[in-house]
């Protein structure tokens, strides 16, 4: 089960062992990581689980669908090349050790 490290907006790092198949959003919210809102509960509806993914892992993640791409354009914090929505990225063996940074506002 992959270990994911979340860096909260204030710089606090929290690492959790996520079940395979869980989304990075679920891992954050269920454990109480600050800064991920996920007001729609993971339906790719709200762009409030915006995360910045460690560049080293970008190529390991599945390509984003058009919907996620459009939502990210409307996210409150600045969109960067490594922006993803946490609800659309799942914990797989390939992301062991992944570090994600959480923007200051959602």
């Amino acid at each position, binding site marked *: 089960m992959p270990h994911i490290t979340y860096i909260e907006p204030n710089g606090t790092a929290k690492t959790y062992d996520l*079940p395979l198949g869980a989304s990075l959003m679920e891992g954050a919210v269920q454990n109480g990581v600050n800064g991920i809102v996920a007001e729609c509960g993971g339906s790719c509806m*709200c762009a409030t689980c915006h995360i910045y993914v460690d560049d080293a892992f970008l190529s390991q993640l599945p390509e984003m669908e058009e919907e996620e791409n459009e939502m990210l354009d409307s996210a409150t914090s600045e969109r960067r090349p490594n922006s993803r929505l946490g609800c659309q990225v799942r914990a797989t063996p390939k992301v062991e050790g992944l570090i994600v940074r959480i923007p200051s506002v959602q």
Partner: protein
Amino acid sequence: MKKVVIIGAGHGGVQAATSLRDMGFEGTIQLIADEAHLPYQKPPLSKGFLNGKQTVENLLFRNANYYAEHHIEVIVGEKIEAIQLHNQTVTSSTGHTFEYDYLILATGARNRELPKAIASNALYLRSMSDAQQLKLALDVVESVAVVGGGFIGLEVAASAAEAGKQVTVLEVQNRLMARVLPPVLSEVFLKKHQEMGVNVQLNATVSAEALAEFDLVVVGIGVVPNQELAQEAGIECQNGVLVNEYQQTSVSNVYAIGDCASHYNRFAGKQCRLESVQNAVDQAKIAAAHICEKTQPYDAVPWFWTNQFDLKLQMAGINSDYDSYAFRGDLVANKFSIFYFKENKLVAVDSLNRPADHLAARKLIQAGITPTKEQVEDATLKLITS
């Protein structure tokens, strides 16, 4: 030390507990759920859970550690049966008593049911156990009748059709989702369901005879608010528990939030209950803030969504009263938004597979900014500059 008791552990109840801690509340928090599960999210029950993409674990709001670390006592499987205002306690069906300084009613709503004479074995969908039962039943039947062409009914119909079932939707009105959608969107959803093999019967007569020919009957014909607890305690109710802009009921240390709360909503322009995640979550924050003496009135733009097949509809604001509208996007490709105006003011936007429009719409309506129809219709133009 102050004590908060929250009755109901859906979106509203859980958010209230979380927000209280986030806002620095230091007293005790008891979150009481009548179901046996750790609190979970209901919206996916008719969508991802039914089609097997999500499991119980995916739907939990928080894990057990979270509640322990935040000193939120989650009490599962306790049904609260009475509120005693005089000594500030509530009692459960198993005889337990809980004391409160502040009580938050997040009791939600329950399904409206068809008379037993019409549908004696029908399934309804509200809770996890309803969904599990429905999922099992869907595995072993061929034909399914869905009574009610609203959000829940149509989401179930879509999930069942995707699972290869022969689905018939029976809707008594002359179009789908008529309470919340304009005819043009009802038509888009009708066509999609038909294209995916769903037999949609409008102006339908729902009778025991009509339902007898199906292996399984699922009913989604709306909900009624769970207000009896409040009512029996003498708290004012009228189609829901009446609340002010701080979510206080007629008893000042008793709050009501979410589906069960009847409030004046300026975006709807009337007293109403809203059955949505947004309303439950935002009202929970208002109640928590009031308890923490960080008072602010409820003033959030309502928003809703539904997913059926590849159609994702997001609604911002309340579109029940408008005098003109404008389209944005591509009607043929089912990627468009409808902007509704009343007296030249933007009041609501429905976005079909246009998520960016939806997010922009929420910001525009909240801020009271009205784009011109020309701006709306020019899809190359950004509606919001961040």
